[in-house]
């Protein structure tokens, strides 16, 4: 029973259900895998092996008592932006070091209720601000496909952990592409649901009108299983959609003949790599061969403005969201100075990293008297234009298919000195993010031995069509649950 960690969640569930192995064994296999590769990958900020063993025992009792769910006993990684009661939650920031929350986020409550086993809190760019997980106060995560490369971000730890076998599914969060881009760069499936589908209660806020939690898994079915567990209405989040969520697994394995697929022209520019283009073109051709009507004439002309919109709205919201970190009530606190205000300044000065400070300043500037109309307000207006373009498009198409990222994984350190180049890596995930549409990234091939992701964007709250297309495509491509061999030793 070695290599249990290689299983997908649905395979593992079958094994647990038929008593081929126990949740404790499955968890131990995963913990052993963490021991073996975590030194090289560094996917976690806080591993929680003790908690995992306890939860695994509990999971075995649920199988015995017949109350197991598809997530029961499945080793899960949780992005450290997600509040977990009693388990340190840092958001990747020094400023929250040692913060042990006295409450649970909605999603953590949900996965515990489902019987999942949390093996650790995964690494991220500080406060989810980044596309490479290099902006973590706890050191970068390495891409399991090539340890010299970034895993993408900000949910880089969650994507890398799934790809490295350090957990079977993970939770990430997506503000501008933070689930999909790392999923693409790590060769796994990442699903950013419709804004409002999953409660944000207990998600350390970055861009409140954009943040959304979603699953990262080894295949589309696992992603659907996790979303099934965490989605649905939560009265503690006023932006949470009041409609009940349909059972998403019903969309898997369905025929996709006759579905209308739009492929927007604008998504093949912006320095897209040839290898990425080739893989995505192949995926589009596959969709055609599966009977979809593919329209290459779709144009979404405001696409290019999504980056500017995003980098005004998200930092503006962040500038307010991060104002609470003053070292007075929780987390890191510098109290060496003689006055309260100095202490707060020093706490924030050394508690926040450079990228976070950059975005706080961007956002503060965009909201300032005299600049508000030109920046924040204008950005919201353009956001509405992008929204309308998608609305129009979804009158004609069931889904929109694009590359997830213009590039495959890039070397650690390659873009840290050029924020704009780093921002451009999210150019294909930003438009749907600022609109709040559901979008999945799934692997569609390799370029230079590195995974390429294809993105399927759906209409509002139509996660069903996204999963339907993604699952059919995944089946045809045959990439699911392909895990890289990790070179022994640390980089």
């Amino acid at each position: 029973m070695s290599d249990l960690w290689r299983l997908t969640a649905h395979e593992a569930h079958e094994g647990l259900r038929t008593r081929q192995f126990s949740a404790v064994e499955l968890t131990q296999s995963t913990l052993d895998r963490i021991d073996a590769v975590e030194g090289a990958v560094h996917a976690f900020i806080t591993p929680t092996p003790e908690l995992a063993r306890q939860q695994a025992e509990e999971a075995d009792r649920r199988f015995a008592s017949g109350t197991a769910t598809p997530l029961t006993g499945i080793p899960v990684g949780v992005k450290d932006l997600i509040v977990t009661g009693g388990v340190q939650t840092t958001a990747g920031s020094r400023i929250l070091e040692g913060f042990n929350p006295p409450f649970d986020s909605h999603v953590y409550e949900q996965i515990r209720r489902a019987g999942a086993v949390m093996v650790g809190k995964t690494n991220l760019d500080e406060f989810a601000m980044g596309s490479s997980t290099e902006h973590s106060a706890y050191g970068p995560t390495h891409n399991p496909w090539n340890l010299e490369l970034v895993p993408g971000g900000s949910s880089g730890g969650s994507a890398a952990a799934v790809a490295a076998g350090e957990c079977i599914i993970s939770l990430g969060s997506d503000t501008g592409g933070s689930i999909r881009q790392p999923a693409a760069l790590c060769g796994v499936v990442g699903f950013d649901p419709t804004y409002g589908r999953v409660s944000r209660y207990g998600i350390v806020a970055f861009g409140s009108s954009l943040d959304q939690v979603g699953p990262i898994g080894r295949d589309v079915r696992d992603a659907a299983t996790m979303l099934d567990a965490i989605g649905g209405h939560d009265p503690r989040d006023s932006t949470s959609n009041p409609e009940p969520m349909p059972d998403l697994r019903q969309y898997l394995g369905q025929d996709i003949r006759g579905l209308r697929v739009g492929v927007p022209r604008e998504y093949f520019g912006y320095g897209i790599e040839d290898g990425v283009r080739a893989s995505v073109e192949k995926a589009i051709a596959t969709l055609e061969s599966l009977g979809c009507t593919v329209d290459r004439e779709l144009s979404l002309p405001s696409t290019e403005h999504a980056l500017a919109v995003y980098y005004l709205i998200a930092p503006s919201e962040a500038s307010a969201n991060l104002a609470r970190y003053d070292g007075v009530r929780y987390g890191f606190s510098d109290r060496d100075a003689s006055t309260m205000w100095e202490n707060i300044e020093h706490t924030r000065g050394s508690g926040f990293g450079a990228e976070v400070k950059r975005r706080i300043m961007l956002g503060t500037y965009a909201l300032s008297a005299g600049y508000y109309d030109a920046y924040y307000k204008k950005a919201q207006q353009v956001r509405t234009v992008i929204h309308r373009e998608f609305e129009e498009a979804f009158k004609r198409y069931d889904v929109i298919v694009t590359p997830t990222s213009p590039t495959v994984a890039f070397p650690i350190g390659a873009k840290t000195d050029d924020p704009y180049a780093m921002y451009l890596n999210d150019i294909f995930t930003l438009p749907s993010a600022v609109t709040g549409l559901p979008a999945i990234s799934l692997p569609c091939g390799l370029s230079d031995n590195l995974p390429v992701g294809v993105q399927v964007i759906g209409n509002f709250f139509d996660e069903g069509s996204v999963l339907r297309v993604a699952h059919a495509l995944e089946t045809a491509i045959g990439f699911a649950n392909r895990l890289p061999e990790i070179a022994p030793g640390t980089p």
Partner: protein
Amino acid sequence: MTATATRYETIIGLEVHVQLLTNSKMFCSCAADYSGAEPNTHVCPVCLGAPGVLPVINERAIELISLTGLALHCSIAPFSKFDRKNYPYPDLPKGYQISQYDLPICAGGYLDVVTADGPRRVGITRIHMEEDTGRLLHRVDPVTGEGYSLIDLNRAGAPLMEIVSEPDIRTPAEAREYLVRLRQILRYIGVSTANMEDGQMRCDANISLRPVGQAEFGAKVEVKNMNSFRAVHDALVFEELRQAEALDRGERIPQETRGWVDDRAVTVSQRTKEEASDYRYFPEPDLPPLRFNEAYLESLRASLPELPEAKRNRFLALGLSDHEAETLVETRDRAEFFEALKARIGGDEQRATKLAANWVLGEVGRWANETGQNLADLPATPEKLAKLIQMAEEGAITAAAAKEVFSAVAESGEDPATVVEKRGLATISGDDELTAVVRDAIAGNAQAVADYHAGKESAIKFLVGQVMRATRGRADPQKATDLLAAELDSK
């Protein structure tokens, strides 16, 4: 007419913060009534501003604000939203306050006040919702002598509304009158206890002077820290004089914020316009906008009680004097007691009105003043009091006895007839019994009898007093007078 009024016109506008009478705080389920509680015991992750928490609107608070708007003749916006007001302060846990910037719930109302120069209509610019802050407690270390501050967050997140008046007020006395009327209405509709001393109602004043005849306003000075109606009045009197003297000297009044120092009876400069904060308001992404439909507003309108002004007019029409009507409507429970009593007395309306008013403004009012209790808790209910009044009117008890019966009923809640019987307070009806007392009085007061026969008419009054004393007020004074005269004259 104030001292400066011949040269300058005073322009005053008031901003009144009112704490709403809800069970829970504005955005969380903590109890809103924290009075007397240990510091930081009415708190939860939401009002502590923990990472990842989200606000949920207290619908009752919105209802109370809308009710206030209706009572102040405002229009209720069909569409309203919340905004973040950003400023760092240790009593503000999130680093921003959820408030309303450009789309308040209520706008464009008025409040009629009665001034020395007759009635005046003061415009209400807007009423909006905001959350309260915590409180800083400043301490000095007894050993080191160093100052430090403690934070109590029990008040943080308590629901407030801010009622902003137009600059329609012309004198400090009018400002006080406006506050008195406003408080009366707030208490009538039950939205707040509106006690300034407890901070349930807080008032900031904007005051400027302009030369008589000049159209444009002078520089506005905002005065804060006034904890009573008297303080508001005195601070405005001080400011009026200070500004007038400065203008007389040819000085320019700087736009600034000044604080009222109660024990020194002066205002002192706190902040000039140059130091004014930029609050960087932007729409609160965590809360969806509010939409009010006509049915909701109609149900609110229906739940609005009769307001003091309408009551006063109705009472005047019943033939009561200005003073009587004004005093009766001062509090809602007094007005309602009066109306209930009047209804119980029944019969001729003018007579019932007069009787009820006399009692409510007399004995009943005295009871309320002495006990400090609400009239709703008076054991002498309108029903019992009406019986008592009936007995007095029929001559079954005298006016003096009626007061004694009231005291007893107010104490015990017994039936007035029982009290009369138990205490033997029924008016002496038999002439024989009274004649005996009269004869005793004549026999025992030779000097008065002699005075009477010497033509001193007033001597009979003394004798009547003796009869009343001997009967413990149970004699009909007129009858006693007649009998005395008959007895004396027959000698």
